[in-house]
């Protein structure tokens, strides 16, 4: 069903390079994927895999050194017009991991939540701004009078709600959520995940949900991409990925997920991924191919043929 929906974000051969010209480091290396309107796209990887960099490239914080990012059919990567830049700011918002660190501790909630309005709608009347702050706080389950308080007066879960309110006030279509629940306790995590699902239903929001936690990603995502050292290894619908993981890295990652089930943990077999196991050569380089509808895997001709057989 999601295949018929409009492509909201198209990422093609995205490459992001850091470091000096002499010592370049490719944080993201030739990544391609689409995100459709209204879906939750999960991006899973370990630390240093480049998952956060992809999110930052989309919101135009990290410079793109190769490939393109299109939003609603329009290129938003590289040099763009002022108009496009403003369009990105208005339509794409970000929610960060650590609600302790991502809120200005010296500013009141009122200012934190409306900062985007100040920069994008300079001439908005004060009464309207206040109204929108109150509404944004209400949308995330906080009281309007919290606007007069400072971040330290809130618990972790409440602070993450403030972070979400700050994104919502811009009335975005697309939210990049980078590890939004990783710093939260189990019970608070459930509240924030439910809030995100509810907002998506009510407003047709589209999410890029970046996380290292596969069990959370599985719960919230329609489709999942697995990234390792800057390259996508596998991309599939959540159920496809969990039921038929093909790439050895995906399999290793899935085998390591801690499950809250002692019987399963006792019998669990850890798979270890060794990136040198592929034996890629010039003659047989890794490709990125769709093996069944919606299921992409990285592998050489030989590997892809082997994966195809397991799908039959």
């Amino acid at each position, binding site marked *: 069903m999601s295949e018929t929906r409009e492509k909201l974000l198209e990422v093609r051969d995205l490459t992001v390079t850091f470091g000096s010209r002499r010592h370049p480091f490719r944080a993201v290396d030739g990544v391609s994927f689409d995100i459709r309107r209204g879906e939750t796209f999960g991006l899973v990887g*370990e*630390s240093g895999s480049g998952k956060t960099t992809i999110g930052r490239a989309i919101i135009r914080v990290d410079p793109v050194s190769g490939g393109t990012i299109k939003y609603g059919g329009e290129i938003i990567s590289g040099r763009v017009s002022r108009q496009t830049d403003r369009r990105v700011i208005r339509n794409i918002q970000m929610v960060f991991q650590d609600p302790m660190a991502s809120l200005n501790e010296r500013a009141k909630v009122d200012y934190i939540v409306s900062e985007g309005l100040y920069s994008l709608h300079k001439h908005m009347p004060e009464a309207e701004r206040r109204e929108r702050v109150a509404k944004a706080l209400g949308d995330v389950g906080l009281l309007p009078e919290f606007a007069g308080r400072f971040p330290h007066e809130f*618990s*972790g879960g409440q602070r993450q709600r403030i972070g979400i309110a700050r994104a919502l006030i811009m009335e975005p279509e697309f939210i990049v959520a980078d590890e939004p629940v990783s710093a939260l*306790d*189990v*019970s*608070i*995590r*459930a*509240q924030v*995940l*439910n809030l995100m*699902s509810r907002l998506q239903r009510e407003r047709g929001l589209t999410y890029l949900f970046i996380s*290292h*936690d*596969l*069990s*959370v990603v*599985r*719960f*919230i*995502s*329609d489709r999942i991409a697995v990234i390792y050292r800057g390259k996508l290894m596998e991309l599939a619908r*959540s159920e496809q990925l969990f039921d038929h993981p093909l790439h050895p890295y995906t399999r*290793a*990652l899935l085998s*390591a*997920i*801690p*499950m*809250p*089930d*002692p*019987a*399963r*943990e006792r019998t*669990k077999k*850890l798979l*270890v*991924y060794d990136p040198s196991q592929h034996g890629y050569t010039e003659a047989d380089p890794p490709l990125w191919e769709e093996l069944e509808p919606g299921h992409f895997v990285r592998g050489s001709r030989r590997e892809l043929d082997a994966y195809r057989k397991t799908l039959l």
Partner: protein
Amino acid sequence: MKENVILSFEDLDVRFTLRGQVLNAIRGISLDVYRGESLAIVGESGSGKSVLTRSAMGLLDANGSIAGGHIWYDGRDLAAFRTEKEWLAVRGREIAMVMQDPMTSLNPLKTVGAQILEAVRLHQGLRGAAARAAAVQALADVGISDPETRYKQYPHEFSGGMRQRVVIAIAIACRPKILICDEPTTALDVTIQAQILDLVRSLQKKLGLTTVYITHDLGVVANVADRIAVMYAGDIVEVGSCDEVFYDPRHPYTWALLSSLPQLGAKGETLYSIQGTPPNLFHEVRGDAFAPRNPQALKIDFLKRPPYFDVSPTHRARTWLLDPRAPRVEPPEHIRRLRERGGGGYV
């Protein structure tokens, strides 16, 4: 103290003074730790799980103190220790600790070898070549390849997982009886996390250690624990074997905690979530501390603190629901499913 008990908390109270106000961080905890077992203390932030273990190592912050009760270890009452000198005989030597973040628990200015050497000299009394050999061996014991070379390197030359192995090597170098692991894998990637847990398990077997894990991650708990103690608001609300707590939990807080795991939820469904926030421990807690957040709380839950009720010889919970006079309250659906299947209910 029973023969097989190595560490015993008896009616322990720990208080902190903050800006003239008193915070009751630990409220009358009694818990036995058995020799050679692997015990997991589970709780959310602020539940007091770290304070409890820190009190057994004399590592409470300066504004905190043991206000009542005892901590028995090897015939001594650790709660009665007053001087740093007394603690030095226990801390590290008898009870060692591995902390969450290997970035901050290692000294970035000293080589890894020097840091292990320090522990070896202090606790094993070795000097010179013998001390160095023991330190290199400690690196080898925690699965670091080429320990001779690694010995001379600095922490920044190690990956996160390797750094945590170094921290474990330092803890083990003192040949402790009890190893406390405070969120040992929270800062690590899942694949590395599994390897570190395996390492601790094999060391435990090899050295006959007793391990105490402090964690909020129920997946880690299911992997490592023989027994589980569930903490809420400075109290242990339920304690039992790993299977008992996962498959037959009895306290409403344990129900809520397990139910809110995304592993139990299905996409598109609303995840079970606990409403409200934990009680403010600056105020006196009346009755069952979880009652205000428990939609099925009984009247007595608000009035009187429940005692422990035994479910089995190894399993007890502090809830009025287990009182014979209590009405029958069904646990949430997810928990009932777990009970029926005795496991396998998790996707």
